[in-house]
């Protein structure tokens, strides 16, 4: 389908608009979907279809830390599955789920391009590579400590 670029409020590519909305709100809610549909003059059925096409767009609230662990051959050949299972246990959520404490969302994704530092994952979009069980344990510990410090800091205010 060839679409014409008409005078919309925001002439930026839809992909970028959707990313921004997700960055601001943590996910793309039904409310935001409607807003974008109106502002960009896009039929809402089509807009929903676009959002649901792409793995990185989420239509439900996400954990504070979105973990995308690579499930492609180079990482799998380097012990990736073992780390997956470890993560699931440690954060208390399966692949595709969000942990009950709202801290982590875990996804298995396709190659993230860190094959020379396999196994690898993205945490909120930042690569964490050359993973081992130990490194993961440490990483999760650090994240949890940081969170505790922050919430203490909040309490003190």
């Amino acid at each position, binding site marked *: 389908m060839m679409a014409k670029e008409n005078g919309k409020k925001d002439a930026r590519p839809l992909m970028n608009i959707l990313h921004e909305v997700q960055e601001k709100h943590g996910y793309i809610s039904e409310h935001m979907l409607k807003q974008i549909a109106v502002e960009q003059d896009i039929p809402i059925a089509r807009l929903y279809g676009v959002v649901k096409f792409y793995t990185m767009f989420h239509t439900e609230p996400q954990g504070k830390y979105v973990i995308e662990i690579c499930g*492609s051959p180079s990482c799998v050949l380097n012990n990736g599955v073992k780390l997956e299972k470890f993560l699931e246990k440690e954060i208390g959520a399966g692949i595709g789920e969000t942990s009950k404490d709202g801290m982590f969302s875990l996804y298995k994704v396709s190659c993230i391009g860190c094959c020379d530092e396999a196994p690898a994952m993205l945490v909120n979009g930042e690569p964490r590579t050359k993973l081992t069980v130990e490194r993961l344990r440490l990483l999760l510990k650090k994240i949890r400590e940081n969170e505790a410090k922050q919430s203490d800091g909040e309490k003190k205010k």
Partner: protein
Amino acid sequence: MGKKRSELMQILRQTKLEALEKARTLGPEGVIALMEKRGLEGRGGAAYPTAKKWKTCRDAPADERFVVCNADEGEPGTFKDKLIIRHNAETLVEGILIAAYAVGAKRCFIYLRGEYDYLRPRLQEQIDEVLSRAGMEGVTIEIVRGAGAYICGEATALLQSIMGFRGNAMAKPPNPTTCGLWGKPTVINNVETLACAAQAVLFEDWDPTLRLFSISGNVKNPGVYEFPLGVKMSTIIDVARPVKKLKAMSFGCFGGIMPVDPEMAVTPETICMEKCQHGAYSIIFIDETNNVVDVAYSIAKFYTYESCGKCTPCREGTIRMLNLLKKVRTGKAVKKDLELLRELATHVQETALCGLGQTCGNHILTSLQHFPKDYDAYMKK
């Protein structure tokens, strides 16, 4: 000797806007002629002659043209474009500007995969920097952010994504080069192609036979290496340093799985002889501790995530092939299942709409051909 990242010479050579300057002295047609002389071929996997693509775009009657840099590097085992974006972005940007100049485009896009979004802030800085000094009036370069869809590395799907649609592959004709973004002639080139374009314009001694190899898998020294085509397999293996004995190698997920022959000279012809495709020269090494069927399974899984879902053979065939491999791995498969697997893989290859579907059966057909014992090990007793 292969050169690792820190010693890479050619791909990291910077052109510092001198290539653009030279291009402007040659004129658009002159640039295209030089590209042809240099013999630059697309580095995204299809190896299409770059000069021909630029000429076709330029010659197509239109009031507007576009240049798109395909930075949706998504083929598993491929990370060479990431290297270029991190360590030679300015040359890449210059290459985009040269392409724009050659075809007569004003608006340019870089489609950057969502998984590389952490590279975007620095890349944006470098784009702004180069544009501020390039003196290309009215030319813009906009980064469009991907969001986790391998298929968007396919040219027609990429354009769909830029235009704000689902990343469906589209039937050809029309061809994007003559009818692409919003119906206008559009050049889509890979990151490496565009960086090479700038280098090829400026450096008289630019060597078209040097390619970037992404090496990964069961090796101690994975990484991006620059080798000339025709390099011996043993050279690659020596540099990559496998841990155990190597059994097989896969060209990404799409290219097929073949045995490792240290004596083989790596060329398109030798790879084709093994019924494989070299693509962007991503090699995933598999050692003898692995059953190739398990690797095929993880590849098949990849395709059931990444198929866009539009055409029947790929949408349905990928999940059926995965289910058959699942059956094999659980020891429940019989000979008929392998026949069906082969039939499906061939069928999808022959009838799918786009390159994803047309190659998603390669790993099955090649592993069946080259590693029948691995399948036998799993078959129902």
